[in-house]
């Protein structure tokens, strides 16, 4: 029993012994207050359900996601005061309600309060503004019930999270010059560059054919050695090598230009969308953190219907700071890419220190195109061209949030 309860009991006993109605009344009130708190502390959280429902777990920057918060009181005991505090990721913005900072780093609080009758259900409709790319979570939630006198009686934290991912915007592309140059010289015209996945048939064995090319079922059927032949590689492969570092990163470790990073992500997403619409196999490589223990984020080129979604997911997860030097990423590309693929180097920085690596990629058989982005794009493109690397300038005006098209010019 609490102090107030003891005091109330004492006053009741004294009042009864002394025959003082006033003391009896005050003591009884004290016991009543403490009694009500005890009831809500014991039973308040029982039969109480809390649900979060997001209309979608995938959105694009600029979207609005409907959020329904539902509380159900599955018992007869009414809840005069019910407070729910959702811990949400930094960056979650709810149109109808402000989030407040908490003592936990990277988390904000979204608070709601209800009054529920017995067996009542209340649904509140909110709208989450997907303002920036990223991965966001809502939850866990701390529920607190109070008695009729608004005194906190019981509290419980419910685990469970609702997550949503915001992909960067994808805008249309306006290309002034020679976009076909991005696709590099078609591998089929450069001589026999068979694609091992495009099995085209068989032909008789000729001296010098490798043993691993023998097609054994046909050989058994015909009684003579037959080898596999392949169609030449016809599908273009393009890898977007995104340099997530900005000029600010060159000045101080860990610093970055937020708007420039977002602009780069919009540019990369828009390029990918355009290429995939042209049925070009497109992939992405970035030296950035994505929430897993891996220094590089890599999505192999592909042209399937889900490739654009996967690209968007990867871009959404990227950190704004690099995880490794971009030169290291470029140097490792020959181990994962097929010769003949086009590498679009998308960067907002001065390319001078990386041009040697880009030229080396070109000598290894990759068609390297430098796409300069940002306020110094024209100068960066000029330097790349003077070093013998084909270069384009990409612009997103007026900014990454409202720009309608990515303009690319040679």
């Amino acid at each position, binding site marked *: 029993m609490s102090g107030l309860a003891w005091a109330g009991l004492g006053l009741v006993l004294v009042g009864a012994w002394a025959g003082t109605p006033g003391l009896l009344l005050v003591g009884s009130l004290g016991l009543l207050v403490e009694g009500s708190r005890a009831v809500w502390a014991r039973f308040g959280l029982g039969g109480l359900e809390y649900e979060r429902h997001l209309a*979608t*777990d*995938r*959105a*694009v920057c600029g*979207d609005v996601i409907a959020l329904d918060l539902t509380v159900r009181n599955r018992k007869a005991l009414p809840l005069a005061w019910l407070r729910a505090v959702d811990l949400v990721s930094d960056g979650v913005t709810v149109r109808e309600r402000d989030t407040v900072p908490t003592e936990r780093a990277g988390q904000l609080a979204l608070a709601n309060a209800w009054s529920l009758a017995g067996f009542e259900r209340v649904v509140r409709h909110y709208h989450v503004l997907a303002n920036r790319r990223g991965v966001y979570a809502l939850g866990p939630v701390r529920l607190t019930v109070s008695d009729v006198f608004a005194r906190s009686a019981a509290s419980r934290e419910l685990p469970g999270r609702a997550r949503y991912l915001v*992909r960067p915007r*994808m805008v249309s592309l306006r290309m002034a010059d020679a976009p076909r140059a991005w696709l590099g010289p078609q591998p089929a015209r450069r001589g026999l560059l068979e694609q*091992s*996945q*495009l*099995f*085209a*048939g*068989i032909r008789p064995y000729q001296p010098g054919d490798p043993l691993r090319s023998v*097609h054994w*079922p*046909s050989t058994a*059927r*015909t009684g003579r050695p037959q080898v*596999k032949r392949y169609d030449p590689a016809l599908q273009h492969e393009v890898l977007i090598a995104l340099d997530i570092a900005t000029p600010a990163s060159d000045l101080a470790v860990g610093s970055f230009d937020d708007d420039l990073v977002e602009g780069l992500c919009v540019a990369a997403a828009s390029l990918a*969308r355009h290429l995939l*619409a042209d049925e070009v196999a497109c992939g992405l490589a970035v030296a950035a953190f994505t929430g897993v223990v891996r220094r590089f984020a890599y999505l*192999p080129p*592909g042209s*399937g*219907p*889900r*490739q*654009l*979604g996967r690209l*968007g997911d990867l871009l959404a997860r990227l950190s704004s700071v690099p995880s490794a030097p971009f030169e290291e990423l470029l140097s490792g590309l020959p181990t994962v890419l097929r010769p003949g693929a086009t590498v679009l180097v998308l960067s907002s920085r001065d390319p001078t220190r990386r041009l040697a690596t880009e030229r080396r990629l070109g000598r290894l058989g990759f068609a390297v195109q430098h796409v300069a982005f940002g306020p110094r794009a024209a100068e960066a493109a000029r330097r790349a061209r003077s070093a013998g690397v084909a270069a384009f300038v990409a612009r997103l005006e007026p900014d990454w949030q409202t720009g309608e098209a990515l303009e690319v010019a040679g």
Partner: protein
Amino acid sequence: MTEDGRPGAGAAGGVPVAGAVAGEAVAGEAVGGEGGPAAAGRQAASRTWAHLRDAVAEAVVGAEQPLRLLAVALLADGHALIEDVPGVGKTLLARAFARALGLGFGRIQGTPDLLPSDITGSSVLEDGRLRFVPGPVFTNLLLVDEINRATPRAQSALLEAMQERQVSIEGATRPLPDPFLVLATQNPVELAGTFALPEAQLDRFLVRVRLGYPGPGDEGRIARRYQREAEPLARVGQVLDAAGVRALREATRQLTVAPEVEAYAVALVRATRERPEVELGASPRASVALYRAAQAGALLDGRDFVLPDDVKAVAVAVLAHRLVIDVDRALRGTTSEQVVDGILAAVPVPPILAGPGAAGT
């Protein structure tokens, strides 16, 4: 050849059905027309479904709904695409289904070096003469495992077979056995070295079946099953034969479909073309598929008439894989299943009234 090496039923007709109870009407008998024989046929169909379900459950745990869709595809004279992540039992379900039906069974493993002639067959020179060696497609039930690992060239070899039940090889057209059903499996994760099925081929599958991960209880049963024996398929008995399948298919075709139910099915398909989220809606082939699939579902329930609920029950499986979702909507997480669910919620279900001329009378 059946799944376990027994002589297949092929097109020639029946093998005694081991799973049927002695004295009961086998599904191949006395079907069609009005009155007693028709009722007996429907009851036999319902019992056959129960036997089939129990037989396959000896090997495959927790797959009743996917199995029902395979049965629907069989009765509706269609083909089924089984799509799901690795390791959930796609191939096991297909093999158990084949074994329970006792039909001729052929299998093709989708590999990048698969030739069209590996599917359809080819001629070989023997003693100075050409002899045609039929490919695995000349069977009743063809399992194409990992179809999206085969090249587009090989996939196209299946197109004619699936649509027309015949193949053209070296100028000669050769019919395929009856019944003929293609069960194709594929992994939805698009790894390097896979080729997405084109819309034209996807449209030829009557249903797309997804198994999903088993529940915790079922997963435990699966583990214990393999502890008990190395090959659970050995416990799957035969419950039907080719003649029985043909009879059930004929019974399916004769099921009554009220004009209201027919209009409802057509309305659902047409609605797929009008949704803003859909870039390419379902074709008229989908209307036929939905119609036939609903009939098959009604027969499995032992009815001789189709309800709107039968159409709803198969709508997602029949329509979802035929839709091409708008890129912007897909980026926001919209799936074809969600679109079909939305259509089902939006298109009003017609009331079916009892009375002269109404379904069921």
